[in-house]
């Protein structure tokens, strides 16, 4: 902790990059250390130690997103083995709430970035398209929390959703056309007119961490 304070310039730099306040960064840094066991980097296994995450039906996808190089803005594809604090902050910064003084353009970019995060989570093979298989997988996982639902219904829901997506995006399809999958542009189209103000934001407080996480 003490050493962290001395590197206030570094904190400032991170703050500029990610838009967090230095308080929040400090807080997240504490949490990062807690998760990593005082190591400079964090790997997948560290996430498994978070007890609250265990019940999350899509936890593997979420953890994966942390190591996704697309989200880390490092490479168009591939997974990182471990991430450092800056990367951790980068991922977290996807969830910053909208600020009052943002103009239209910034808002739009902000929104796109958030959606991109979700898109990348769906698009597990990094080909820029959510195929039916991928979609089904996600829906299956999403609904896996309900033990009474069978895989079959999840599949048909995914199919239905995919069809809906197709009808929204490619309304005037030629009969012999095949809808390959949802591209990011299509994805944006689906989200058109839907507020994500409350949906993709976490309030990063300056409050104490949950004390016992291990």
């Amino acid at each position, binding site marked *: 902790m003490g050493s962290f304070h001395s590197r206030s310039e570094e904190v400032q730099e991170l703050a500029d990059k990610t838009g967090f306040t230095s308080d929040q960064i400090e807080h997240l840094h504490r949490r990062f250390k807690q998760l990593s066991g005082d190591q400079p980097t964090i790997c997948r296994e560290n996430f498994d130690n978070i007890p609250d995450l265990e019940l999350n*039906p899509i936890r593997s996808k979420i953890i994966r997103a942390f190591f996704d190089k697309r989200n880390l803005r490092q490479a168009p594809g591939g997974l990182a083995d471990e991430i450092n604090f800056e990367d951790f902050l980068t991922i977290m910064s996807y969830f910053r709430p909208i600020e009052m003084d943002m103009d239209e353009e910034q808002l739009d970019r902000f929104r796109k970035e958030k959606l991109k995060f979700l898109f990348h989570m769906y698009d597990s093979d990094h080909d820029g398209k959510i195929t039916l298989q991928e979609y089904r997988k996600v829906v299956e996982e999403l609904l896996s929390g309900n033990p009474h639902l*069978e895989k079959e219904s999840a599949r048909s829901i995914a199919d239905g959703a995919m069809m809906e997506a197709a009808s929204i995006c490619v309304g005037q399809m030629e009969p012999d056309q095949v809808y390959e999958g949802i591209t990011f542009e299509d994805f944006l189209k689906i989200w058109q007119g839907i507020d994500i103000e409350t949906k993709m934001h*976490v309030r990063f407080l300056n409050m104490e961490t949950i004390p016992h996480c291990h």
Partner: protein
Amino acid sequence: MGYQGHILLWAQRELEEAPGRHPESSLGGCLLLGLLALAAASEHEGQGDAGEPHIFQIVTFKWHHVQDPYIIALWILVASLAKIVFHLSHKVTTVIPESALLIFLGLFLGGIVWAADHIASFTLTPTVFFFYLLPPIVLDAGYFMPNRLFFGNLGTILLYAVIGTIWNAATTGLSLYGVYLSGAMGHLDIGLLDFLLFGSLIAAVDPVAVLAVFEEVHVNDVLFIIVFGESLLNDAVTVVLYNVFDAFVAIGADNVTCTDCLKGIVSFFVVSLGGTFIGIVFAFLLSLVTRFTKHVRIIEPGFVFVISYLSYLTSEMLSLSAILAITFCGICCQKYVKANISEQSSTTVRYTMKMLASGAETIIFMFLGISAVNPQIWTWNTAFILLTLVFISVYRVIGVVLQTWVLNHYRMVQLGIIDQVVMSYGGLRGAVAFALVALLDKNKVKEKDLFVSTTIIVVFFTVIFQGLTIKPLVQWLKVKRSEHREPKLNEKLHGRAFDHILSAIEDISGQIGHNYLRDKWINFDRKVLSKVLMRRSAQKSRDQILNVFHQLNLKDAISYVAEGERRGSLAFIRSPSSDNMVNVNFNTSRPMGMEASVSYLRENASSVCLDMQALEQRRKSIRDREDMTTHHTLHQYLYKPSRHEIIQNEDEKQDKEIFQRTMRKRLESFKSTKLGVKHPKKINKTHKRDRGQKRVRGECFMTLAHTDVICFLLDMEFSEPEENEYEHLHTGTGIDFLANVTKQNFTETSGIDNPAFSDDDGQSVYMRFPPWLSNEDTVVPSQRARVQIPYSPSNFRRLTPLRLSNKSVDSFLLADGPEERPRSFLPESTHM
């Protein structure tokens, strides 16, 4: 239903007590209602009865016997009729809120009553208001509360409700007292406590007024829930403040001690938390009861009303906040009750609740108007009344701005200036204030009349003036409106994904936020509460996403049926072949490749209300059998993971080519048909259908074409019976003919070729089977498939003239040939 009827009756009967307090009022009511003769007769009868009681009369006229219920029923009738009249003119109701119109009506009727009797016969008495008129409205609000939105903004709502109300009460009361001390109001027999008492009853924003006005304005959800939530939850504060100051006034200002003040503060927590607790207990009880009503479906809806009403009465009995109790009863039970009760009961509950609430609201506003016509209560004090108006408006604004400033430090979605303006402006006062002020004891509060008149003025001012102007204001400020969108499956799925992501992020970043708490609550709910409170079958199907899926499927199904009906065919319902029944039920064959989930969806008590549902029930058994075969066939032939995986031989390709071309043509004709359709009020419906068509076009060959192909097939079926029906009309051979046609087609198509097919080039191309059936023959097509699928291409030829018909009747006639003459009705049908 029967049970509910009882409740309703009972409620009405209780309502009667109001005029019952004024027995002399009967005459006025009768005069007013044009029942002069009746009243005169009743008097006469009364005397007659007294004079000669022993003579047997064949027909007796017993007005006094029925007087009270009769008057109540008539009042309700008048109010309801008035509503009809208001809505005759669309212009009036879009400009003036209904509540304001009702107040005017009340004033008018009150004037007539006054002119007739010179006694204010009918007033809104607190008992009637609090026991019978308020509970339905609040229950309605609670039961249909968007829980997620409500709890998401609970902090904000609570702040406005508690601090805001206290602020309003204190500042208004104190300022008025200050002005009074300065002598601007002249001499009044009034003390500081009276002012505070008045401040506390005038401070609270009224749920009834807010609902009435905001329902017509359609501001965005967050804004609405904040204003409305505040108006509901501030009840506890109002009740406590009112009781405390009422008690203080009674003991006298000099005798109030510090302990009393402390007791007041404690009582606030007891009243609010106690009320909430009672509500939750009764909600638990209600959910539990509905779990076991499987065999008494008919009285199921009754439980909802009775038990929630009991929660209201119980907390009233314990002098806790009754509004909070019934609100939370509704909020907490809604999920479980809706899952437990059958779909029909759910619909019944919904409509009964809406009816009661809307009726109560109507009566409240009308009686507010009527109550105002009573010279005895009017005491005018310009300074007092005007200053009250000024103070409540100004302090409301100040309070909102201050609180929002604080809140915006904590809120994720900030409340902007525009929101604040609407929130300040939406601080409407209403019947609660009036009922409270009417409850005051004149012996203790000397200036009761002044308070009453001021309250009436304030209520009228806020409801009429602010209600009138809020709509233009909202438009002028460009407040974000709530838009009613069709729920999208994708949206729901992504929403669910977001929820999980957010709670995961909160877990990872190690903080306890909304999402964290919600996640924990959902887990708890699923593991414990739902198991206790929900039926086993309901637990299975109770997933929001499944519901949306189900609803969308139903909607699609309805729109396709509607399409068939619009084009003049009801024959698919009553045609002789039992197979045709499945036409109605195609929604269930939609979730293909999932027998299991089909049954889930069927058990699923969706909240969609359909007249079709009764029908569906009866047909379940046939359908189940049908489904199996249909599903299997369709799955075999239609539902391929990818089009490219279908091995095609030469023959098939050709078939496909033809099929595609015809499809395209058919869809075009569909489109042009639709252009001719005039559905001014059903634009979105048409749009929906349009979308459905697009889907057919795009996706028939898509990998996941399952459902729409079915729908498409059904579409074709629709046009078929239409044909038959028409011929049936003209040939007069009746149902037998229909049967023959179907049979004929059956034999014909299961045999060889179907010649009914026209190509672009005009060549007659013969089609052995539609491509999807000619794939392989390992699976025998189901009855339905055999009867209807191969037989459907004949529609294509019939659709061609349909398209032409929009341009010119001649060409259409030409195209069809003389023997097709009866079809000339088609141009009409396209304009239906």
